[in-house]
């Protein structure tokens, strides 16, 4: 860790020498650099081309209505860049409060495509030069930008939890009583539904209709606009895909989301630090355990605590079981979407039940584990739980994996549908900020567990599985390989599980976190899951942003589906492996 921090400082001084009038170090509790707005593109180009910062991992905005922590009143646009190894380089760009505009980085880093749209949608910061700056999670025509600090919800009660009305004199008041309509609704003054018609293109058909009208004279096939979802059995939830077809070939495909936008970040800024842990479970509900890890990691960085070895091992064990679970279910879904119906899925779900039994035994809940705490884990693993974990990791799951391989890997039907479909070239994968099995299947050996080791991952022997062709089949192979590596890690961890305490310090419900910013990231089963938090030194996060792997990975969906048949869309989507809770947050 120290080494990477040292090198980041070097880079900061280097950049300052290179761009003396555009770059300066960020004010005290912040890390990284402050870049002048008009020179951002220049600095970013230099970072990418000369300094090897090829990953733009996360783009987000922090709203400062008043000066705080040495930041003036502004909209602070925060970028996180990564090299192949080591910690982040954080770029801050301050945008004006009256008219927040910053240059868009999409031409340089397509990975900003969705993230800048999200920032515009929720924060109202314009990105100059963005090719398609529409709302993404909410809909065109929504009133206001809800993540701004001065935007209040209908059921707004108090700035921060805990609410004073709960104790000592708390009689239940339904939230509905806070709205004149008895519902979570509010309309701008003077607005009436009688003369209102949906004016703007709420459902986003306009660009597709446009495209469908201009038919290609070389291809006599008609162009059709097709809407898939949000209620579709193969979109894994409430994703909507809008497709323009030429015959059966895809001309343009656009994922549309927000059907599960649960206002996670706004609620997270109101919660106390501890209270956010159970909320993170609800992000990627297939692998709840590993969602908690980057959040506690980010907070632990600010607090400066290090969990004891046993807790770190238990965290690794849980994370790897989750990875196994996620990949098994994801392959099962792939089979489901291919028309194998439920068989592969049922086999995967059976293993899932066993793993969930383990989770329930250690944490108390099957799905929403709420198991990690700052500085450790909530409960120790009992002898019984360790025995079950050993039975799974040494016998049951390897057997399942062998069987899976024997009926899936060489199956001609699967190969006929998967080989050469949805090819993602490595350069494109990096440019679009893809992470996880999707990136590694394209042949890029990038894994956060190695690039920036966290917890006890340094102690274990494991390989990074990479593919060659970057097609659906390779993604499947990478997942299977990763499941094998997970078992390897599990076996080592269970054999060497150290004794000792499971918590550093005492559990505290009302914890204050020192002012500053921190970015915690782990290699979640779906890719790099990052939490960016800003603290003002109080009991609640000032800003709480989630860089969700599914969300960023979806950005490349339109590119890799281009030219394929409509029937391939579902399997490409299944191979990207998304969870809508995480895409929409």
């Amino acid at each position, binding site marked *: 860790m120290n080494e990477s921090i040292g090198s980041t400082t070097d880079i900061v001084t280097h950049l300052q020498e290179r761009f003396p009038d555009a770059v300066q170090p960020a004010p005290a509790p912040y890390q990284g650099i402050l870049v002048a707005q008009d020179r951002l593109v220049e600095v970013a180009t230099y970072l990418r081309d000369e300094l090897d910062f090829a990953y733009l991992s996360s783009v987000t905005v922090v709203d400062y209505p008043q000066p705080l922590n040495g930041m003036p009143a502004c909209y602070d646009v925060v970028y996180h860049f990564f090299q192949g190894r080591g910690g982040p380089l954080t770029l801050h760009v301050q945008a004006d409060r009256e008219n927040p505009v910053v240059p868009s980085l999409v031409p340089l880093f397509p990975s900003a495509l969705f993230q800048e749209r999200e920032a515009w949608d929720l924060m109202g910061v314009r990105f100059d030069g963005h090719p398609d700056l529409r709302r993404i999670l909410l809909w065109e025509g929504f009133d206001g930008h809800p993540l701004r600090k001065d935007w209040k919800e209908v059921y707004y009660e108090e700035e921060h939890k805990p609410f004073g009305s709960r104790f000592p004199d708390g009689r239940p008041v339904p939230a509905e009583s806070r709205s004149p309509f008895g519902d979570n609704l509010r309309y701008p003054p003077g607005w009436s539904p009688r003369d209102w018609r949906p004016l703007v293109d709420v459902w986003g058909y306009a660009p597709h209709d446009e495209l469908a009208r201009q038919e290609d004279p070389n291809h006599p096939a008609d162009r059709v606009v097709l809407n898939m979802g949000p209620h579709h059995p193969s979109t894994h939830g409430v994703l909507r895909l809008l497709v323009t077809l030429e015959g059966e070939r895809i001309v343009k495909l656009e994922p549309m989301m927000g059907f599960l936008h649960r206002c996670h970040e706004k609620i997270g800024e109101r919660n106390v630090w501890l209270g956010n842990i*159970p909320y993170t479970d609800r992000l990627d509900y297939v692998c709840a355990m590993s969602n908690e890890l980057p959040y506690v990691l980010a907070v632990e960085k600010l607090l400066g605590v290090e969990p004891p070895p046993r807790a770190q091992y238990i965290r690794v064990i849980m994370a790897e079981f989750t990875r196994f679970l996620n990949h098994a279910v994801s392959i099962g879904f792939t089979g489901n979407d291919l028309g194998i119906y439920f068989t592969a899925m049922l086999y995967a779900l059976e293993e899932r039940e066993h793993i969930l039994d383990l989770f329930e035994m250690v944490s108390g809940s099957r799905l929403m584990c709420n198991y990690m705490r700052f500085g450790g884990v909530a409960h120790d693993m009992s002898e019984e739980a360790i025995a079950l974990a050993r039975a799974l990791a040494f*016998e049951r799951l390897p057997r399942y994996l062998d069987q899976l391989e024997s009926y899936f890997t060489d199956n001609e039907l699967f190969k006929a549908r998967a080989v050469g479909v949805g090819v993602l070239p490595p350069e494109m994968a990096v440019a679009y900020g893809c992470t996880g099995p999707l990136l590694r299947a394209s042949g890029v050996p990038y894994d956060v567990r190695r690039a920036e080791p966290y917890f006890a991952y340094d102690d274990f022997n494991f390989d990074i599985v990479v593919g060659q062709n970057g097609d659906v089949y390779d993604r499947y192979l990478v997942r299977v390989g990763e499941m094998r590596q997970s078992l390897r890690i599990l076996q080592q961890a269970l054999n060497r599980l150290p004794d000792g305490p499971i918590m550093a310090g005492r559990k505290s*419900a009302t914890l204050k976190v020192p002012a500053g910013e921190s970015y915690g990231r782990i290699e979640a089963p779906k890719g790099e899951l990052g939490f960016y938090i800003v603290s003002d030194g109080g009991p609640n996060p000032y800003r709480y942003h989630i860089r969700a792997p599914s969300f960023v990975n979806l950005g490349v969906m339109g590119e890799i589906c281009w030219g394929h048949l409509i029937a391939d869309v579902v399997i490409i989507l299944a191979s990207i492996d998304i969870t809508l809770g995480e895409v929409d947050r």
Partner: protein
Amino acid sequence: MYIGWNILKSLWITFRRFVESYIDDLRWLFKKGFGKRYTPETLPVRQHPLTKRGIFTVQYPAERLPLPERFRGFPFLVYDDETGKLLCTACGTCARVCPPQCIWIVRATDPQTGKPLREPAEFYVDISICMNCGFCAEFCPFDAIKMGHEIEVMAFDRADLLLDLEKLRRPASYDAQIHPTDYAQKQARKGE
């Protein structure tokens, strides 16, 4: 290899799994007689990851999976079996730590002096909001609120899901029954 060989192999695996699930039943039938296979006594064997063969299904509602001790259902308030007094001292920790803020407490006051007493006058948990996170039980300094093991909760009306003090009360013996190790530890600590 011939084209289609692996398809046959895959089909063979599914077929074998299908047959296996019945073979075990038959074997059981010859050994133990009819009707003994799906009983709660054999449940642990049928559900164990290593000994499991045959059908995996739990015949709910006739039989139930055992819940682990740590299972988090909905919160309940513990009262002393003998005195009938709640252990809750109305300190408000649970109401403060609850992430979705679904706990409401009214602290009792002495009717004569108007001073706050160490007991709740009213206590509400809205289980239509509760996210079963278990923070209330984890952070309660008096072990007065616990996560129950009731899983078959349902209602026909949303208003029924707001639990008040009456509906939340459970005796300490119930707590001891569903949380045996936890309870034993607590007793041991008391004895010291």
